């Protein structure tokens, strides 16, 4: 059974004028179908305003569907009775860590979630320690979050979600404000969570490089899912991605350019190791230059 299942999910916003009269309707999600299995690592790509964040907010019922159905962990999100259950099992991490941290001390901030759902004190401390350790922030447990850098704050925010021990974690551009090493730390932490604890991960991002390790990629445009597949399938369609204001990893773009120029490179190269291996093989091959192939 899918952990997240959406059928023809629709979300409409009413635009209102100053008197509150409806001026028009914006369709932020338009007939979205999703099927995400437990334990999958799924990436969602799309330009600004494509509906990614609206979708994320549906996954833990911060928003409700105007049409269609969304089941999370087999529970219909339109059913009020499941609200808290779903939220507890689907943790959210947002772009700006400053909006997510509330306590004056790091460990108290991480403890806030489990405390609210009545976890016994001893276990709260265990969870706090485990979560902070998994994001590499244990040594900052006694610090004030205000004094941390953006990347450190974001890792604390993720620890706060992990302390709830959710089955699924939805990250809405968690690395947009971080430097390369901060991005790597956050991604490594998220990938470890997925691999070692089997947590379902839904990562929304603008960084194409972050997507290469995902099991599945959805591309959104104007509220619709316009492409889906493995990273290799998605990134072999360079021109189509560009038409959705997106890009491909630098290495994929380079491979694409070399292939166009006549080198025998397979489509959908994702990493520089792959490209390096292919180029070295092509370069090292004896007597395989095109004239020989033609005459032989």
């Amino acid at each position, binding site marked *: 059974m899918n952990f997240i299942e959406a059928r023809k999910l629709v979300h409409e916003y009413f*635009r209102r004028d100053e008197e509150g009269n409806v001026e028009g309707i914006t369709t932020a999600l338009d007939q979205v179908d999703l099927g995400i299995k437990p334990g999958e690592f799924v990436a969602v790509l*799309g*330009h*600004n*305003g*494509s509906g990614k964040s609206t979708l994320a907010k549906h996954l833990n019922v911060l928003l409700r569907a105007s049409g269609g159905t969304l089941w999370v962990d087999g529970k219909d999100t339109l059913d009020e009775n499941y609200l808290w259950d779903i939220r507890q099992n689907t943790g959210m991490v947002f*772009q*700006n860590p400053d909006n997510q941290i509330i306590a004056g001390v790091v460990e108290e901030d991480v403890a806030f979630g489990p405390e609210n759902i009545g976890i016994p004190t001893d276990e709260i401390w265990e969870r706090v320690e485990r979560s902070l350790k998994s994001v590499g922030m244990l040594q900052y447990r006694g610090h*004030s979050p205000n*004094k941390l*850098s*953006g*990347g*450190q704050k974001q890792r604390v925010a993720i620890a706060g979600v992990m302390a709830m021990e959710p089955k699924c974690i939805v990250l809405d*551009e968690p690395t*947009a*404000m*971080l*430097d*390369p*090493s*901060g*991005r790597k730390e956050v991604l490594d932490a998220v990938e470890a969570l997925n691999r070692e604890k089997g947590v379902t991960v839904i990562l929304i991002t*603008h960084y*194409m*490089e972050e997507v290469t390790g995902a099991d599945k990629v959805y591309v959104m445009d104007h509220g619709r899912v316009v492409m889906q597949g493995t990273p290799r399938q998605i990134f072999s369609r360079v021109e189509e991605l*560009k038409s959705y*204001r*997106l*890009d491909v*990893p*630098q*290495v994929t*773009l*380079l491979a694409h*350019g*070399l292939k166009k*120029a*006549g*080198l025998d490179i397979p489509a959908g190269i994702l990493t*520089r190791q792959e*490209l*390096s291996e292919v*180029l*070295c093989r*092509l*370069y090292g*091959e004896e007597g*395989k*230059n*095109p*004239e020989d192939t033609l005459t032989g």
Partner: protein
Amino acid sequence: MSMILDKVNYIYSAQTAYEKQALKNINLKIADGEFIGLIGHTGSGKSTLIQHLNGLLKATSGGIYYNGRDIYEEDYSLKELRGKVGLVFQYPEHQLFESTVFADVCFGPKNLGLPRKETELRAFAALRSVGLSEEYWYQPPFEMSGGQKRRAAIAGVLAMKPDMLILDEPTAGLDPKGRDEILGQVAAMHRELSITVLLVSHSMEDVADYVGRIIVMDQGSILMDGAPKEIFQRYQELEEVGLAAPQVTYLMHGLRENGIPVDTGATTVEEARESILQAFTKAGKLRQ
């Protein structure tokens, strides 16, 4: 006409448990018309440094000289400095507040005490410079896309007619196309308005295509200062301080180690493509 920093130090929360030296002995000269990328990992002191450049933070010790004048002199007008050195913060669109884009852009020059006509002329010019289409000028800023809002916010700073424009992560949170558009626009403003631009960024890929000089910061000090090609050759050092060279730099070094004679100085996809094709053609592995 330049900005000179002489042995600038800055200490946050001095004499408390959280005392932290954010800037250590910074010596820096920025000449007129330069396009500079300021790079460093989170917490390396970039934001602290740029807030010194327009006097929002005052150095704990050391001096800053703008166009030959000490900005810490008693009779120096910091207000005037802030009009000359425009600072666009991260997520500047959060600072939009007026009922229309046009009114928002007028806010800065209006506060300088300029007459209405001059204010509006400047607003028109600024909105044109950022490439925001006229249909949005009299719309509420809140209904525009992220990239458009950011342009409106940058126009608000441009309307102050700064000699120097500092942008703190202007592409954060934008989609790839939006990134290219904003950076392309900044490069065009640098060219056409001949203003000095200081671009703060995490992304080597972003700055590699645009800037003429890169300053790398680490732990409050300037670690490297030079042309992009020189900086990226030192990619191992960059990694040690939590940064990275563009992906193609690594690829090119790897290929060279494996005996393919490519140019390791290539920093963009285009340069790398040319260099690889050249190597393959020379070796007779690619038919023209």
